[in-house]
């Protein structure tokens, strides 16, 4: 998959190498590496507390890494802050706008920090801010506040944008508007880094996904390369004969691989993080289903569920960490 390499230049928009960051007793980030390609949408996907926010805060120059290097557009976010700030847009998880100021005035205020900001009125229309333009920030709904924060992140025409949980608390309509704006940014050539704990968001938006857990990047690539393009089949089984010596999932998987091989299906079978569930890798078809159910009859095991189709990022995360994302 070519998506990990930028289209023209070799240097990614954001490169983090061996980042560690500790808060008193908690080690929030433990040797994290990531590269966000230029002009693409990169998602940092992981459960709450995985270290996503700390990582982007180091990229934004808000926190100083304990060890490791962070480069944004080739610059150090702490040392070269002055050069970098006009070129980087930030949307914080907790908003970051003054609570007593009317919404549009807050956006105008941030826009005054830039030499040639976007047209505030046009941006407000595009994100549907006009209906609450004069409402103080503290009286906005969660969704309105998110959209305003997103507008302030992009008002300065940044080359790189960091969005921390941009669609948290949004209704489906507002979420789609936010996603569309993020895609428009990519069309304009902006490099976007979003953090999210929502699989659907990463799948819908990201060109490049970095899965983060316990302060480390545990996998990265395009959505396709992470979930596997061909699809797979999940089979949950249950032993019928209580006197039968129970075989482990590993033994069952090995047995099924051999049985499938004998009937001409060269698929690998693995166990999954759910007990009693096997995963058959490869494009599922009627023949394969027939072979699997025939094997189950011969072995005296009951198939309690059988699903086919693409794996989801959720499955990938389960396989990598053995636990659910949410």
């Amino acid at each position, binding site marked *: 998959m070519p*998506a990990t390499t930028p289209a023209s230049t070799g240097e990614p928009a954001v490169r983090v190498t061996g980042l560690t960051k500790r808060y008193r007793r908690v080690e929030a980030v433990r040797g994290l590496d990531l590269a966000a390609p230029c002009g693409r949408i990169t998602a940092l996907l992981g459960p709450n507390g995985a270290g996503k926010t700390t990582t982007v805060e180091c990229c934004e120059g808000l926190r100083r890494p304990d060890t490791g290097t962070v480069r944004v557009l080739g610059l150090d976010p702490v040392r070269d802050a002055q050069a970098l700030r006009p070129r980087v847009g*930030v949307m914080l998880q907790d908003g970051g706008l003054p609570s007593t100021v009317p919404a549009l005035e807050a956006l105008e205020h941030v826009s005054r920090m830039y030499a040639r900001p976007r047209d505030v009125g046009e941006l407000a229309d595009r994100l549907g801010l006009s209906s609450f333009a004069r409402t103080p920030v503290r009286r906005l709904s969660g969704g309105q506040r998110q959209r305003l924060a997103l507008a302030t992140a992009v008002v300065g025409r940044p080359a790189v944008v960091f969005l921390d949980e941009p669609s948290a608390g949004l209704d489906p309509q507002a979420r789609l508007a936010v996603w569309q704006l993020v895609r428009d940014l990519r069309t304009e050539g902006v490099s976007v880094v979003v953090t999210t704990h929502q699989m659907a968001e990463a799948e819908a938006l990201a060109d490049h996904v970095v899965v983060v857990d316990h302060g480390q990047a545990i996998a990265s690539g395009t959505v396709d390369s992470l979930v596997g393009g061909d699809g797979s089949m999940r089979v949950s089984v249950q032993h019928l004969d209580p006197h039968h010596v129970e075989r482990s999932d590993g033994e069952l998987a090995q047995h099924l691989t051999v049985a499938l091989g004998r009937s001409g299906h060269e698929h690998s079978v693995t166990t999954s993080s759910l007990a009693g569930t096997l995963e058959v890798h490869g494009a599922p078809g009627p023949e394969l289903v027939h072979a699997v159910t025939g094997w189950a009859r011969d072995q005296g095991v009951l198939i309690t569920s059988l699903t086919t189709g693409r794996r989801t990022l959720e499955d990938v995360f389960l396989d990598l960490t053995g636990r659910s994302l949410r």
Partner: protein
Amino acid sequence: MSLPVDVPAEPGAAVPPEQRAAPLARRVAAQARIEMRTVLRNGEQLVITLVLPVLLLVGLTRTSLVDLGTEDRIGLVAPGVLALAVMSTAFTSQAIATGFDRRNGVLRLMATTPLGRSGLLAGKVLGIAGIQLLQMAVLVAVSLVLGWSPSLGGVPGALLVVVLGTAAFTSLALLVAGTLRAEAVLAVANLLWVLLLAGGAVLLPASLLPAPLAELAVLLPSGALGEALRTVLAEGTVPLVPVGVLSAWTVLLGGAAVRFFRWH
């Protein structure tokens, strides 16, 4: 998957004009303006910065409920109310605003814009100065109407004392706002304001306080500010002891604010 080939300039290449910051002066002025508007728009803030000082000014000079020990009531009260106004704006009002901005992530967000942390600080200081200018204009005008005749030779010295007092109390505001939770900032800022008003010799001279408090109050930043303004505006000369005390507080509180202020 088709991906756009439209890729931004290489890192390190010349920064395109649309990705440049506004000039420093414009950024700081914008921040100062929003700080001032926030105070002027906010009802409680207006009460503490303007309404209450004016009420005290009129109440203490036009009634004799409080025995001030002098016939020249306005000559004693006017400098005290100016000192109180400095304390309200530079400390209470600023601590609360900064405490909530810190909790709401405003300090962090503005630090990621071209304004930066130093620009934010400069904007705040300029905003405080703007509000104080407004306060001074109103309070001096009301005082003059009430018959105040300060020593004109003391005006430059009084300005110096106001600047010093503002520096000391702004440092205290940032120290409180940058180390405590927003709700605690609210409580501490209001409580300190009331305590210093009652026993800190800011509004009325330390000599009117009971014995142990009188000696202590002149060593507080509130007492030093109040005594310095009362002396310089009555006699025209800058009193060295209170100004020294105020300077020491400024260094101490400023150093502590720099050392302990947390942006997160």
